[in-house]
C-alpha cells in the first residue's frame, strides 16, 4: 500500500514546488522590470540625466547643480508617487474583481473616480480648498459614498454592477460640469487634477498619505487567501469556515483606502485597476495569494511605465500618465470583451 502511494506523492510534490519556483521567478522578474522602469523614470525626461549623476544626486547632492535639483525636486517625487499610486490602483482593481467575481470591474468603471472627483470639485469650488493635501479627505469620502451606492444596487450581478457604475458616473459628471462652468478658478484647478498625472503633487501629499497605502497593502495581503476561497462561491467559502460578510466588509474598506489614496495622489486614472489584475491572472493563475503581490508590482510597472512613455512620445513636452495609461488599458478591455468568459457573464 505504502509502496504504491509514496511514488505518486513525489511527482506531485515536485510539480507544486516547480510551479511555486516559477511564480517566485516571475515575481522577481517583474520586480526587476519595475526597478528598471524606476531608474528610467529617474533618468529620462525633457532633460536626460545619466545614472551616475542620479546616484550622485541621491547620495551626495551638490547645492546649485541643476541636474541634482531636477532629480530631487521632480524625478524622485513623481517616481515615488507613481510607485505608491500604481500599487494602490493595481491592488484596488484586484480586490474589486475578486470580491465581485467580475472580470470587468475597476475603480473607474464602478464610479469611484467620479465620486472622488465630485468631492474634490466641491472642496475646491464651494469650500475654497486649493492645497492637494486638502483634496485627500474629500477624495476618500467621495469614493466611499460612490462605492456604497454602486455596491448596494449592483452587488452580485457582474454586468449590472458595471452599468450601475457607469450610470453613477453619468449622474455625477453633469453635476461636476455644472460647478465647473460657474467657477472658472475651480475649473482651472480641477482640469489639471482630472487628467491624471504624477507631477505637481509634491512630496508633501505622499508624506501624509503613505500610511494609507501601507495599510491598504497589508489588508490586501491578509485578505488574499479569503478571496481565493470566495472565488469558489459564497457557499463554498462559508463551508470552509469563512465569514463571508466580514471578508466583503474588510475588502470594501481596503478598496476605498487604496482607490481613494490613488485618486488623491494622481487624479482619476482610468483602466490601470482593470488591466493589471488580468495580466496578473494570466501570469500566475487564479490563486489570489499570488495575484495580489503580482498586482502590487505590475500596477506601478504600468502606471510609472505610462508616465515614462508619456515623457518620450512628444518632443519637448509630456503626455500625462493618465492619458497613456488609458491608451494602454483600453486594448486590454477590448481583449477581455473578446475573450470567451465574458460572453457567459
Amino acid at each position: 500500500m505504502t509502496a504504491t502511494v509514496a511514488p505518486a506523492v513525489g511527482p506531485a510534490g515536485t510539480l507544486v514546488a516547480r510551479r511555486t519556483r516559477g511564480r517566485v521567478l516571475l515575481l522577481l522578474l517583474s520586480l526587476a522590470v519595475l526597478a528598471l522602469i524606476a531608474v528610467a523614470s529617474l533618468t529620462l525626461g525633457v532633460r536626460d540625466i545619466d545614472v551616475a549623476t542620479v546616484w550622485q544626486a541621491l547620495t551626495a547632492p551638490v547645492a546649485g547643480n541643476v541636474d541634482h535639483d531636477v532629480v530631487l525636486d521632480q524625478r524622485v517625487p513623481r517616481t515615488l508617487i507613481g510607485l505608491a499610486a500604481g500599487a494602490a490602483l493595481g491592488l484596488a482593481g484586484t480586490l474589486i474583481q475578486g470580491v465581485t467575481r467580475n472580470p470587468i470591474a475597476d475603480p473607474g468603471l464602478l464610479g469611484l473616480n467620479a465620486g472622488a472627483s465630485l468631492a474634490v470639485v466641491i472642496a475646491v469650488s464651494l469650500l475654497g480648498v486649493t492645497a492637494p493635501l486638502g483634496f485627500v479627505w474629500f477624495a476618500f469620502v467621495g469614493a466611499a459614498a460612490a462605492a456604497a451606492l454602486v455596491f448596494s444596487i449592483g452587488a452580485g450581478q457582474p454586468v449590472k454592477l458595471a452599468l450601475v457604475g457607469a450610470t453613477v458616473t453619468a449622474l455625477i459628471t453633469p453635476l461636476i460640469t455644472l460647478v465647473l462652468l460657474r467657477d472658472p478658478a475651480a475649473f482651472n484647478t480641477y482640469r489639471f487634477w482630472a487628467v491624471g498625472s504624477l507631477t505637481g503633487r509634491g512630496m508633501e501629499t505622499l508624506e501624509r498619505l503613505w500610511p494609507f497605502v501601507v495599510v491598504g497593502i497589508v489588508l490586501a495581503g491578509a485578505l488574499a487567501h479569503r478571496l481565493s476561497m470566495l472565488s469558489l462561491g459564497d457557499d463554498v467559502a462559508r463551508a470552509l469556515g469563512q465569514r463571508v460578510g466580514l471578508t466583503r466588509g474588510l475588502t470594501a474598506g481596503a478598496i476605498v483606502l487604496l482607490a481613494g489614496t490613488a485618486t488623491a495622489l494622481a487624479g482619476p486614472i482610468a483602466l490601470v485597476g482593470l488591466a493589471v489584475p488580468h495580466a496578473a491572472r494570466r501570469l500566475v493563475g487564479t490563486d489570489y495569494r499570488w495575484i495580489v503581490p503580482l498586482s502590487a508590482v505590475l500596477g506601478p510597472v504600468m502606471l510609472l511605465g505610462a508616465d515614462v512613455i508619456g515623457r518620450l512620445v512628444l518632443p519637448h513636452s509630456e503626455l500625462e500618465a493618465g492619458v497613456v495609461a488609458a491608451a494602454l488599458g483600453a486594448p486590454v478591455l477590448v481583449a477581455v470583451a473578446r475573450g470567451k468568459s465574458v460572453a457567459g457573464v
Partner: protein
Amino acid sequence: MTALADAPRSPDTAGTPDPGPVEGLRARRRRRLAVVLTTLAVLLVAVATLALTLGEASLAPGRALAALFGAGDAGDVFVVHRLRLPRIETAVLAGAAFALAGALFQTTLRNPLASPDILGIASGASLGAVWALLVAGLTGLAVSGAAFAGAVTVALLIWLFAWRKGLHSIRFVLVGVGFAYLCSSLLAWLLARADVREAQSALLWTVGSVADVRGAELVTLAVAVAVLGTGVAVASRWQAPLALGDDNARALGVPVDAARVVSLLLAVGLVAVATSFVGPLAFVALVAPAIARRLVDDGGAALTVSVLTGALLVLAADVVGQHLLFGIQAPTGIVTGMIGAPYLLWLLATDGRKSLA
C-alpha cells in the same frame, strides 16, 4: 403615467360580444397606444407653449400664440420667431433623434442599457468637437462636422472590435465602455492643455445645449432627422421580431444580420447628426425608450412613443434649465443627466422584479 402603465388590462372588452382573445388584445393595445400618444402630444404642446411665453420678456400665452402666427406687435414676433421658436424646434428634433437612436440600439442589441452615452459614441463626438475647437481652431459648422466624424469613427471602431462571428450584445457594450474611457481620458487631456477660457467654452460643448441652433443649421438638422426617421419607419417592421431573439426573427422571415446592420447604422446616424448640432445630451437616448417601453409594451409602436417622450424630455429639461433651476442657467445636457440618471438607477435597483427588455 404610472397609472397608465399599471392599468388593468382585462375588463375593458367585457361588454363586446366575443371579439376573440387576439382581437381583444389588439384593440386594447391600440386604445392604450392612442391614449399614450395623445397624452404625450398634448403635454408636448403645453410645454412648448410654456417655453414660448417664458423668458426675459414674459409674454402671455395668447400674445405668444398670436405672435407665433405673425399677428401682434413686431417685437413679440421677433422674440417668438427668432429667439424662442428655433430653440423649441431644436429641442424637439434632438430629443426625437436621441430617443429613436436609443430605442434602436436597445431593441437591436436586446440590451435595455445600450445607449450612445455608455457606448462611448457620445464621448467620441465630444472628443471630435473639442479637438476642433481647441486644437484645430474651427468654429460653427466645422465643429459640428468634427463631432459627426468623432461619433461615426468611434461607432465603427466599436463595431470592428466587437465583431466576432456576429455581433454579441455584451461584447458590443464592453468594447463601447472601453472606448468611452479612452475618449474621456483624451478629452480631459485636451481640456488641460488649452487656455482656460477656451477650455471652459469647450467644456460647455461637451454638455450639450439646444440654445444656438437656428437658420440653415436648424434646416439641416430637420432634414437629416426626417430622412433618417423615414429610414427607421421603413426598417421598424423588423424591430418587434428582432426583440424576440435571432432564431424566432429568422423563423418569421426577417433577414436578421441585415436588419441589425441597417438598424444600427440608422441609430448611429441619428446620434451623430443630433450630437453634432446640440452636443451629447446625457441619457436621453437611454431614458426615453425605457419610459416608452413602460407606457406601451409593443416593440414596433414603442418607437413612436419613444420619439414623443424624448422630445418632451429634452424640451422640458431645457425649460427647467433656463428658468426653473433656482436662478441658475443650466445647459440642457446637465438637466437631462440629472433627470435621466436617477431614473435609470431606479430602474436598475428594481430590475430584479421585472424584465426590462
